[in-house]
Structure formats: structure tokens, C-alpha cells
């Protein structure tokens, strides 16, 4: 038996690492990977809660998250390729035609 909160803490740690990475990393691809990490953390929370409530819908939700992640990855990487084609860089700080 493992307390549910252990699973939740693990999921929160993964999510928080993703957030920190999103803010800290400079390479666009790595930033995108950090988003995937966040989604993974979310998935763990879903599965853990599904076990807690004995409701399979939590596990089904994870499938949809994965499908969406896959779709996002396809589109995102295509966007990254098209940015690279016009700017020849993968550093977010150099993608700065639009001033923030």
C-alpha cells in the first residue's frame, strides 16, 4: 500500500519541473519537451485519482491526453521547422522580430 499523496506529489514534482523548464530553457525543442513533461505529470495524477475513486474514466482521460499530445507534437514540430527555415535558429531569445 502506498499513500495516494505520494503519487500526487510525484505528479506535482514532474509538473513543476516542466513549468520550471519551460521558463528556464532556451532551446525551442527543449521547451516543447518540458510541456510534454507537464502532460506526463498530469497523466500520473489522473491514473492515481482513477485508482482512488475506482473510476476508469480517469484512465480513459489519459488516452485523450496522449492523443492530444501526439497531435500537438506533430503540429509543434512542424511549426519549429518552419521557424527554423525562416530564422535559422532554435534559441527563443533570437526569435525576436516581435518585441515582447
Amino acid at each position, binding site marked *: 500500500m502506498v499513500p495516494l499523496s505520494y503519487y500526487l506529489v510525484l*505528479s506535482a514534482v514532474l509538473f513543476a519541473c516542466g513549468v520550471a523548464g519551460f521558463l528556464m530553457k532556451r532551446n*525551442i525543442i527543449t521547451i516543447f519537451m518540458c510541456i510534454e513533461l507537464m502532460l506526463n505529470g498530469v497523466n500520473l495524477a489522473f491514473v492515481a485519482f482513477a485508482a482512488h475513486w475506482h*473510476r476508469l*474514466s480517469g484512465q480513459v482521460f489519459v488516452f485523450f491526453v496522449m492523443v492530444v499530445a501526439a497531435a500537438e507534437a506533430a*503540429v509543434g514540430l512542424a511549426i519549429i521547422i518552419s521557424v527554423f527555415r525562416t530564422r535559422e535558429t532554435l534559441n527563443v531569445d533570437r526569435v525576436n522580430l516581435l518585441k515582447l
Partner: protein
Amino acid sequence: MNATDYIRILPELVLTVFGMIVMLIEPLLPEHNDRKGLGMLALVGSLLAIAATFYQAGYPGQAWFGMVQVDSFSVFFHLIVGFVAATVILASFEYLAVQGIRLGEYYGLILLGAVGMMLMSSAVELVLIFIALEISSISTYILAGFRRRAAISAESSLKYFLLGSFATAFFLYGVALMFGATGSTSIYPIAASLRTGAPALAYAGMALMFIGLGFKVASAPFHVWTPDVYEGAPAPVVALMSTAPKAAAFAVLLRILFAAAAPGWFWIVWCSAALSMTLGNIGALVQTNVKRMLAYSSIAHAGYLLCAFAAAKDIGISAAIFYAAAYAVMNAGAFIVIAHFASHNERYVLIDDYAGLGRRAPGLAAVLTVFLLSLIGIPITGGFFAKFYVFSAALKSDLVGLTIIGVVNSAIAAYYYLRVIVVMYMREPKEDTPIMPMPVALGVSLTAAVVVTIYLGVLPGRVLNYALQGARDLVK
């Protein structure tokens, strides 16, 4: 599965079918074809979807095992999305031709994206809401990058994509926590569970979901992406993405806050509303680029809308619904004018470029003036009643502070909108910007937007009543 199940997703079905037909025809067309035929097809699709929505309004109720619910609320937002999609498609014929974009996928993406936006307003299960949200987001990420030769467009697409996915992850974590707190992902069971007492998890879930949706509706402090993305994206796409997905995201927010009765949102919404209004208007004051200026103004408008959220109750919700409609029409119209005027490669997007427009193209200038006046909230335009209802709802709920902030902000906002009008009518142009003749399609779409804006400003009663009905259906 019986027939009513299908009727309750009929508009989405129509759009999907037309989107797929567009996709199937696109590769058969020769390279140099301008894809106008596909655009017409897409237009027919969106108009049929609107018709389907009217038909659907006679069959309220849930369908697909409690996944979607048709009620006045969903019908209202379906109409907003359908109207914006049709207008933008009409306006895109000329834009795509001028920019030399010969990709039929453009229309396919608008139609399929609209499927997501419509579903967002009728979904009552977080799984479906999430998928619909992603459909609408992903299609707009792609559309933002459609000027493929322009680095600025790719960059806008990238920023939108990265921040949008980031926001989605927050939304999802919120959903997970809400599921943990209540054991369900369906709106009404969640509401039932929360009524018996909300654990701390539910508060955290609500806050995280608000972060995610706050990004999508561009409310402060989650608004930083808006000016950049709107500046870089193609103007008709901005007309779409600053209105339809936003309205849909507001619909989701309304469902989560009021139908699911999520706890503890009041101060978050209050702060976000005040911040959005203030930051949006202050940001807009210093812009020289019209697209950026309107981007900041859209942040401010998200703030006004959130005021209505904070007012809550029937009257606040109906004010929010009405505001969403008025804002969608006037903002889409304004961006369509910009799209027309921007010319090849979007060269003319600075406020100074508009100098002398009032004399050289009186019609275009007059139309833009109507939209800008409506954005300010001048009487006989839709914007006036929208603001009026929002602030009176806020006052009735004793939100004096928020109302004062809102009214002061409206006054500030008048300055930068009026500046454009002044430039158009009072200043002589430095160089003669080319003014293209107005094509019929664009004329139709602008006329539609103007007519609706004025209609909402002169006879708001029917729409407001329907919004009130929607609000009642929502909290029932």
C-alpha cells in the same frame, strides 16, 4: 443512438463534412487555382451550420451519454462562432489572393476549427471540453503561421503554440485535480459533488483551470502573448482568433464557474478583470501598429467581460453572453477592414498609414469608424449596450470598485480608438497608400458585421432576452 443524438451535434457534423470535402477537393485543384471555389464551399458549410443551429434549438437536452447539452446558451455561442466563421471566410477570398496564398487547407482549418469552438460551448464533460479546446487551439496555431514566407508569421505561430500548449497543460492539471476532488469529469456530477462541500483540491483545480482558460481568452496576467501573436498572424486569422475561440473559451469558463459551481473564483476573477482592463488599455495607448493596438484593446475587452463574470447571477451571466456576441462582431469587423487595407505582405498596418483614408475611401473609413465607435461603447452601436449591461450588472451586485475601474478604463480607451478616427479624417497622408477596390465578398461580410453591430445597438432586446434565457439554462 437515436436521431436526436445526431441533431444535437448537427452543426458540428455539417462543418466536419464540409471541412472534409474541402480537404478532398484541394489536392485535385491545379497549382495556380486561387481556391475561391473552395472558399465558397466553406462559406456554404458555415451558413448551413448556422441553419443547423437554428434547427437544433428546437431539440434541447443532453446527448451522447451526457457529453453534450443543447440549450439556449450553447445555441447562442454556436451562432457567434458560425457568424464569425462565415464572415472571416468571405473576407479571406481577397486577402489570400493579395498575399498569394494558394492553400485550400486554410478554409478546411477554419471549418474544422469551428467544430471545436462550437463543441466547446455545448460540451458538458471535461473530456470533450478539453478535446474541443484543443481542436480550436491547434487549428488557430496553424492558421497563425499561414503567411509562410514571412518570418514574423512563423514566429507568431510559434509563440502562440508554445504558450497555448503551456496553458493547456495547466488547464489539464486543473481538470485532474477537479477529478480528484469530485471523482467525476462531468459538469453536473461535479456540481452535485461540490454542493456537498468542496475540498481544497477543488479550489486548486479551479485556479489551475482558470490559468489555462485565462491564457485562451487573453486576460491579464496571462495576456503577454496577445500583441505579438496578433501582430504576426494574418489579419483575417486574427479576426477569427480574437473572437470565435475567445467567445468559446468564455463559454467554457462560464460552464465551469457557474454550471459546475466551482468554488472560490470570485477574487481571482475580480483581480484578473481589473488587471486586464488596466493593462490592456495602458498598453494600447502607446502602440503605433493598429494590429497591436487592437490586440491590447482585446485584452481590455476580456477584462470588461470578466467584470460581468464577477457580477454573476443571471444578470451578470447574460451580460457576459451579450458582450461576447457584440465584441465578436465588432472586433472581427475591425480586423477585416485591417486585412483589406494591409495590402501585399501586410505593408500598411501602422496608424499613420490610415491618414487621409476618410477622404480617399469614405466607405471603408466609415465602416472602420463604426467598429471603433462600437469598441469605445458609443450609443447606437452594439458596444454601448454591451458595456451598459456589464456595468449595470456589476453595480447591481455591489461591485462598485470594479465598476469604477471599468468606467475609467473605458474613458482611457476612447482616446486611442478616437486617435485612429482622427488620423483617418483629419490628417493628410504622407505617401499615397494604395487603396484597392472593395470586392463584393468583402463588402458583403463587412455589411453583415456593420448591420449586426448597429442592430445590437438599436434593438438589443431580443438578443438580450435570449442571452438571459441562456444564462438561466446554464445555471439551472
